[in-house]
């Protein structure tokens, strides 16, 4: 039976229970195999963390320790003589696993494995199993020593960790718009996701193990851009930057970069997480958007200009009429030798020419493409400078009432956009009153509520047809128009909205069908200029 004992000891050794081996080795004074065996039986019986039991050559259970009872839930009486396959799951039994592992142990001397086993109460546990074949000196198979350990807790912890790692990997690889890479503490690439491949053109195989400087141009590297990123992150914990990077193809692009130092609780640096997002596209979109906005503004201005021109052309003909008339009268006087009277007429002509000149200048100033540039302006004065132009625009059926605050209202906005906005609002008012009426333009200071800062307001109000609530709600949408096809672009109010927002102000529209529409633009008040120099209005 000696060999059997040795077999069990080997099995335990494999499970690294060194104290068991120690206990066996510490009994040299006991002489005789029987004593030894008895001691050993006691030892095996006392082990509770391991199921240690013997099988006969057919796989029937021949011994049972307290560990086995503890782990599997059966007493010795319940299992002795039964086949050990009773602990296997039904599936494993159906696949003939019990016989197979015994065969392996018999052929190779030992079997090691990990699998699910079933307790007496039907619950499963994860078992780490070692089976040793036990043979006598002649090599005859006496049976098997089987050691089973319940590793369910460890297995679950392990599998949670694996799942978490898998999730993280999927997450990192799925973030294709971001380049995510892990660097070691010297800045060498360790991990490289699909986003990084897409952005840079380098595959993980090509770049793992290379320094992060690989992503920067020679100039950037000699300027220490990569080193600086690592150093800043190392010092501050994290460092953000916008910088150019180099693709495999050699093309340059712009990225937002975040370098984050990875330290454990003790503060030991384990490496860096390096995150890049290409923003060249974003930049281009911003530029395109800005361009479009400016074009839209210009188109809107031309639309308003078209409206103005109609009024102005009529007026221009009036001026030409005055010139022609006075010249004809002057000719008559000269024919009769009355130069004095002729000169009087010619003076009138000069006055008319001045009027025409001024009108054209005003139109040109309005039409000229100006970059959007907020400046400090007096809202009232700016609005007042439009009096003449607006009066001509609305035509004879519509009158404009002015109600401008006497004090200056300093606001920060683009003067030309303000003019366009005002023309648009007044034209809307005119068009809402096909049978005539008046448009009221007022300026003033409004305090929205207690504690609110006062704002400078421009209000344009008509007595027109108004519009229902649903329509009013859409009034600021681009291309929304109540006017017949071809009479309006539907951009007027949307431009007004854009302009006011851009000036950090607010715009509100109040409309009652049959009564009229009121549009209120409010701008934050800014300080008056230190010296209020008087600009010529025209």
């Amino acid at each position, binding site marked *: 039976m000696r060999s059997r004992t040795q077999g069990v000891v080997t099995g335990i050794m494999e499970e690294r229970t060194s104290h068991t081996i120690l206990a066996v080795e510490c009994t040299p004074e006991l002489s005789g195999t029987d004593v030894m065996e008895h001691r050993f039986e006691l030892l095996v019986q006392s082990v509770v963390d391991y199921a240690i039991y013997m099988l006969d050559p057919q796989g029937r259970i021949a011994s049972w320790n307290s560990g086995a009872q503890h782990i599997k839930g059966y007493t010795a009486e319940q299992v002795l003589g039964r086949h050990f396959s009773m602990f296997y799951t039904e599936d494993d039994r159906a696949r003939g696993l019990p016989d197979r592992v015994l065969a392996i142990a018999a052929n190779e001397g030992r079997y090691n494995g990990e699998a699910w086993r079933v307790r007496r109460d039907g619950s499963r546990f994860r078992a780490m199993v070692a089976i040793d074949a036990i043979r006598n000196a002649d090599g005859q198979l006496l049976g098997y020593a089987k050691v089973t350990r319940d590793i369910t807790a460890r297995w679950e912890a392990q599998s949670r960790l694996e799942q978490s790692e898998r999730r993280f990997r999927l997450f990192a690889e799925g973030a294709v718009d971001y380049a995510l890479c892990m660097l070691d503490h010297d800045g060498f690439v360790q991990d490289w996701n699909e986003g990084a491949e897409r952005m840079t053109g380098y595959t993980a195989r090509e770049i793992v193990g290379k320094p992060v400087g690989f992503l920067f141009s020679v100039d950037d590297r000699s300027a220490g851009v990569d080193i600086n990123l690592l150093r800043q992150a190392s010092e501050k914990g994290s460092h953000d930057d916008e910088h150019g990077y180099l693709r495999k193809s050699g093309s340059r692009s712009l990225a937002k970069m975040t370098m984050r130092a990875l330290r454990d609780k003790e503060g030991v640096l384990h490496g860096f997480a390096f995150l890049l997002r290409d923003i060249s596209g974003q930049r281009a979109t911003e530029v395109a958007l800005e361009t479009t906005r400016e074009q839209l503004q210009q188109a809107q201005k031309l639309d308003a200009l078209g409206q103005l021109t*109609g009024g102005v*052309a*009529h*007026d*221009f*003909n*009036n001026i*030409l*009429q*005055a*010139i*022609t*008339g*006075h010249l*004809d*009268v002057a*000719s*008559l006087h000269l024919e009769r030798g009355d130069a004095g009277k002729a000169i009087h*007429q010619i003076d*009138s002509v000069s*006055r*008319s020419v001045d009027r025409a000149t001024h009108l054209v200048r005003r139109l040109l100033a309005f039409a000229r493409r100006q970059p959007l540039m907020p400046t400090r302006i007096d809202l009232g004065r700016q609005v007042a400078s439009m009096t003449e132009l607006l009066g001509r625009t609305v*035509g*004879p*059926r519509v009158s404009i009432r002015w109600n401008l605050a006497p004090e200056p209202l300093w606001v920060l906005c683009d003067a030309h956009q303000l003019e366009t906005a005002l023309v648009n609002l007044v034209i809307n008012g005119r068009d809402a009153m096909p049978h*005539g009426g008046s448009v009221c333009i007022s300026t003033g200071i409004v305090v929205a509520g207690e504690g609110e800062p006062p704002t400078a307001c421009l209000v344009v109000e008509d007595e027109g047809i108004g519009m229902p609530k649903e329509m009013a709600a859409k009034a600021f949408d681009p291309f929304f128009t109540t006017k017949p096809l071809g009479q309006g672009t539907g951009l007027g109010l949307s431009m007004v909205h854009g302009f006011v927002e851009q000036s950090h102000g607010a715009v509100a529209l109040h409309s009652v069908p049959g009564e009229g529409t009121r549009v209120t633009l409010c701008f934050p008040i800014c300080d008056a200029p230190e010296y209020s120099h008087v600009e010529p209005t025209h």
Partner: protein
Amino acid sequence: MNVVMVVNVVMVVEDDPDVREATGLLLEDAGYEVLAAESSSQALNIIQAREDIDVVFTDVNLREDRNGIELAQEIKARGSRASFVVVSGDLGWSDTPLDEDMRFLAKPYGRRTLLEVVGEACGRARRES
């Protein structure tokens, strides 16, 4: 040669003072008696007082309530024997259908055209009376 001097009377309704003055001077110089009005209400007052007006020469775009065409219709409704010339710098009005005794004249017009149109209007006014 016996010449019966018939002085034709023209009322010029025009809100632009320069145009009103120059047109008036040209017509006076051609021998018309000119009555000037700067608004439709003023024009209606004059019509009330003078039944001998042959031609009403009116701008369409008047600053006040009535436009020139409406003014002409009002004057006709009050039984005036005058014929009408409506004038505008806005060619949009040239498409507006006018009564037979109205004539449209586009601004700017020269002295020759002015006298032609007004002379012709006088002829119409006399025929009708």
